[in-house]
């Protein structure tokens, strides 16, 4: 297994979605519209790796929480105001929308999984990706983990080839020896 590239985005809680969109437009020519904060954050970590991603790639994404603002808007609309939810907010909440937009923007056509990020998130993502790498379904695997508890961070690693030996327990362990592209907002 080779780590091709890695990136890490750190942002303050006070960074607005508009600031995230502005930052993203520096990496993508046509960023998608009507996307929520989780999608923006994940795209911002994946976009710097675009030049090195091939189409036969799988995407393995994890987040600790759903997009809180989207969930809040949906819950307020439906349970307090007794209104129908906005369609794009609803669709972003029930689907793996962040994974979809990353795959669309980076031209990825392989498996696309989304898991809840717990304590073992990095070994779990590697284990899932390794099934597809080892079976030759994909040539590369893009792993992303998003965490927003106050300030936020998203870490991304692009791998090539099946993983042999023990799985890394953290982003820093997995990306050791690789130049990490860092974005601070």
């Amino acid at each position: 297994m080779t780590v091709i590239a890695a990136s890490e985005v750190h942002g303050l809680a006070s960074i607005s979605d508009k600031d995230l969109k502005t930052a993203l437009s520096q990496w993508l020519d046509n960023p998608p519209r009507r996307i929520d904060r989780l999608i923006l954050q994940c795209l911002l970590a994946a976009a710097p790796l675009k030049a090195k991603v091939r189409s036969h790639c799988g995407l393995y994404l994890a987040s600790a929480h759903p997009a809180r603002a989207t969930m809040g808007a949906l819950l307020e609309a439906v349970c307090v105001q007794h209104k129908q939810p906005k369609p794009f907010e609803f669709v972003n909440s029930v689907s793996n929308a962040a994974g979809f937009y990353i795959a669309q923007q980076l031209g990825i056509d392989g498996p696309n999984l989304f898991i809840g990020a717990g304590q073992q998130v990095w070994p779990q993502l590697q284990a899932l990706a390794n099934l597809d790498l080892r079976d030759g379904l994909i040539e590369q695997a893009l792993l992303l983990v998003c965490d927003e508890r106050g300030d936020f961070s998203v870490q991304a690693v692009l791998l090539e080839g099946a993983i042999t030996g023990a799985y890394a327990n953290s982003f820093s362990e997995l990306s050791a020896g690789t130049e990490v592209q860092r974005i601070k907002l």
Partner: protein
Amino acid sequence: MTPVYLQRSALDCALGASLEEAASNLLAGQQPQGDVFKLHEVQEPRRYLNATGPAGSLDERLDRCLAAVLGPQPQALDDCLLIVASTSLDISELEALTRTQQGFAPGDSTSLDLLASQLCQRWGFAAAFTLNTACTSAANGLLYGARLINSDQYARALVLSFETPSAIAMQGFGALMLTSPSGQYRPFHPERDGLLLGEAYAAVLLGREAGDAPLARLLGGFSACDTSSLTTTREDGSHIHWVMRQALKSAGCSAEQIDLVKLHGTATSANDEAESNGMRLLYGEQMPALSLLKPWLGHTLGACGLSESLLLLKALQLGPLPGVSYASEALLPFSAELQRLAADSLLLANFFGFGGNNASLILQGCAQGDSA
């Protein structure tokens, strides 16, 4: 892929509080009526198919589902992975909280890993994670759970999948104009007008050995993302066709060997058109027997990969499958008559979802009484 057994399973759904009851009701043609709710603002009625098992908190329902699979005195689970496959997770509880407080604060948000980690601790699983790929969640849970067993990472895997009666889901699919105003759930009918949502709690224990009451063997499958649209797949069926072919390849079998195709069949205009086209690309006009489960369960969203697979496999063990009353008008060649198929039939099962998620599984049923 090396086959993995569906050793023990459980289902609580609109057709029955147990898998056996649900399968018996399917074979008897007892379609659930469900309850009526109103879409906000427009005040139009829609049907929802509630599960029939005893009421209780989400924890109680999930524990009951696990107990039904693992038995009254389960052996230690320290060799078993738990995969929680769901789109709703604890949303119904958050909805209740929001109604009580008349608002929702960011701090009220729970982690996506919460239920999986709580169940892992309570039951003593080796590890657990939550998997959410929209309506392919449970199908991916089955596929990746089986492959993790084959990779020797775990001896067993338990896939727990559920969808609760979430107001956001009911109102959200209504806002997208995907729910059926007529209340008739008719996938592939030329005048189909949308879906009915359904509640379900389903679980299956996967392992390399057959166990004492296996339902089926998972022979292969494939899952990939169609990036053409967030809410629909390519209408020409090309992505669905590719996914089905890859699934067949992984199982080492041909389309011609398949005895029965379990269609995704949401009864939405675009999905059924795309699936019809995908099926024609794979089979031309000569198709194997076809099966629809959503009219019996409702669309159980992230749980459909498990609720529909388990129901179909159990029904195959018990008797002939019901025909489709509108077969002569449908877009695909369904049978209006009872379909008599062997319990060990070879199945191709399709599951498609928002977010471009398309998945197909290849399963072979086990006759009742088959064991290790």
